[in-house]
């Protein structure tokens, strides 16, 4: 077991998968000699060479589109989009080609590929280096979407994504890239199945549902609640498409109070999906409304980088609301 950060885990997991399966190739902007602007592909170029670690031109449509064609031909491409905010020039390739290929061909062709998106705010990046675009992808049938928050899950889900048979949007909480360190099993087959949530902390008074970068704020809020004698259960969804609604519904049914935390703008967010599902499936078991704590309906601001995030203070406020209800 090595103690490692999230970004180290990305690079090491990719190296393991590339060593295991020579069909795995990495492509993207600056992923070669530079090792990626976040160093998430550090060391791969030296070890696997320019044929399997491909520095592409600056064109996200080419990156995602080429990954589709590589996957169709039998490779297992892992594409890096430098910031999640820059996925949009390649959006059509993702939603029109990758997501619909299996369906439109009646299963004749598939696109087993991974698109890595370093995502999230709190990095003084303004609105084009901070966004969380998961809502677009969860609304795109044919994709899988994951957004882990720990080194262990990064390893396990990245392996599942690389080995799976579908296109996976792999979101990475870049604000936590170096903020979290933990022991990660050496097991080269450490897999976390896509679609399973995990209970990070058990509790009886309220359920906090979150994922990705916001997990760190959510856990801090749970700490603060514990100090106040309030016991919060914390669920880390990890996978957003498909998402583990059964686990969430079961826990919410037991506790009756739920707060959903997500960093993206509120309207049309994945938090809304979670809340709507809870309301539709578990209305009678709710003691209080399913409350969302989210980013605001503004572009991501620069000067108010931290205030935009649903921090522990705003989460606590929401918990108070559902407890007082």
């Amino acid at each position, binding site marked *: 077991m090595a103690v490692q950060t999230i970004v180290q885990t990305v690079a090491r997991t990719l190296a393991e998968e590339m060593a295991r399966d020579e069909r795995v*190739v990495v492509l993207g902007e600056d992923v070669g000699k530079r090792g990626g602007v976040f160093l998430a592909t550090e060391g791969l170029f030296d070890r696997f060479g320019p*044929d*399997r670690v*491909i520095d*592409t*031109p600056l*064109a996200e*449509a*080419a990156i*995602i*589109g*080429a*990954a*589709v*064609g*590589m*996957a*169709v*031909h*039998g*490779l297992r*491409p892992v594409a890096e989009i430098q910031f999640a905010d820059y996925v949009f*020039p390649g959006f*059509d*390739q993702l939603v*029109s*080609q990758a997501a*619909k*290929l*299996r*369906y*439109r*061909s*009646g*299963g*004749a*062709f*598939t696109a087993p590929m991974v698109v890595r998106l370093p995502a999230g705010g709190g990095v003084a990046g303004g609105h084009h280096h901070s966004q969380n675009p998961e809502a677009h992808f969860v609304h795109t*049938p*044919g994709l*899988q979407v994951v957004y882990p928050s720990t080194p262990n899950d990064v390893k396990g889900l990245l392996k599942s994504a690389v080995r*799976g*048979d*579908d296109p996976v949007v792999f979101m990475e909480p870049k604000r936590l890239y170096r903020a979290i360190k933990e022991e990660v099993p050496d097991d080269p087959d450490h897999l976390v199945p896509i*679609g399973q949530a995990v209970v990070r902390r058990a509790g009886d008074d309220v359920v906090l549902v979150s994922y990705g970068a916001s997990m760190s704020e959510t856990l801090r809020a749970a700490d603060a609640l514990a100090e106040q004698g309030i016991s919060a259960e914390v669920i880390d969804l990890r996978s957003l*498409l*498909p*998402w*583990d*609604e*059964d686990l969430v519904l079961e826990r919410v049914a037991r506790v009756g109070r739920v707060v959903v935390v997500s960093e993206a703008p509120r309207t049309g967010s994945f938090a809304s999906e979670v809340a709507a599902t809870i309301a539709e499936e578990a209305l009678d078991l709710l003691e209080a409304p399913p409350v969302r704590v989210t980013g605001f309906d503004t572009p991501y601001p620069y000067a108010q980088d931290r205030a935009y995030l649903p921090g522990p203070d705003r989460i606590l406020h929401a918990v108070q609301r559902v407890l007082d209800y």
Partner: protein
Amino acid sequence: MIGKTQRFEPFAEAPVRVIDEAGQWIAPFAYNLDDDFVRGMYRDLVRARRLDERLSTLQRQGKVSFVASAAGHEGAQVGMARAIEPGRDWLYPYYRDLPLALAVGWPLAEAIAQQMATRADPARGRQMPAHPGSAALNLFTVASPIASHVPPAVGTAIAQKLAGQGDVTLCTFGDGATSEGDWHAALNLAGAQGAPVVFFCENNGYAISVAFRHQSGSVDVATKAHAYGMPGYRVDGMDALACYFVTRQAVEAARDGLGPSLVEAFVYRYGAHSNADDDARYRPADEVAAWRRRDPIGRMRRFLEGRGLWDDAAEAALAAELKAELDAAVRAVEAAGPVPLGWMFDDVLASPSLQLRKQRAALAAQRDLEEPAR
């Protein structure tokens, strides 16, 4: 069949021609093809035209919802089809390429099944007509968004390069496609990577109603190859043999590790953009008539007849054979019956998501998922 040919200079101004409208051999090199090979091409040209006509009939009968006629494009498509090895090389066509799909071996019955979206369609009725695809033939299933298949084509070519087997990818598109950003991103990547891909533009002068001069300030499409460091070739798209020779040269270069090429064939669509279009709104009838006189089928027939390889009897026999083939295929495809409602839920992911399973179950509680769709 014959040795390597590097006959054509890139960027030559005059489009390459091999036989003229009168069916005369006018290439700067002697006729060197197998007679059966050329007769086979002629057969494919005629077969494609007959299918085209039949689809229009089926559309008028309400049995096919959409037709994008390929009449006028057959020469380019049948020509290029002969330049690759189906099942070894990869093909990324666009929606006007039914003649191409047939010419590389897509079974007629599958083609018609895709148009009619019955149970006979291996693609399970998932797409509107004019969207061929075949895993057996490495024929990437067409998607409607223009130019969106060009980046994937380049990805496949890069994979072929890594595999090192000398396989190539042939990717086609219309003139309109060249305006899309994805087209550029793809050609640029191909150039940077030296990927073994041949880009083939079927330039019929229009993107629906928009004439080429309103699509781009460049004189033509072949010129654009300069931007990517690859050779560009102009070819008479109504001359199937010219299209064959030029594409073959580009394919051989790709096999040899010389990287991508861009071929532009000047063609014309005789009909409207689709059955939903009214081309009289934007182009003059005499323009259409002038192009029809250059028809690739008549030209090839005159060539064959001039060499004593074809006559009226052969033509009549072919007509009868093709009619029988078409009749039988349509009958079989219709007989297969409509696809069931429940198929709509399959093939989204390798295994359905929890959410989709619930949705399917909810509909199953209301309707019989085995009932025919619509």
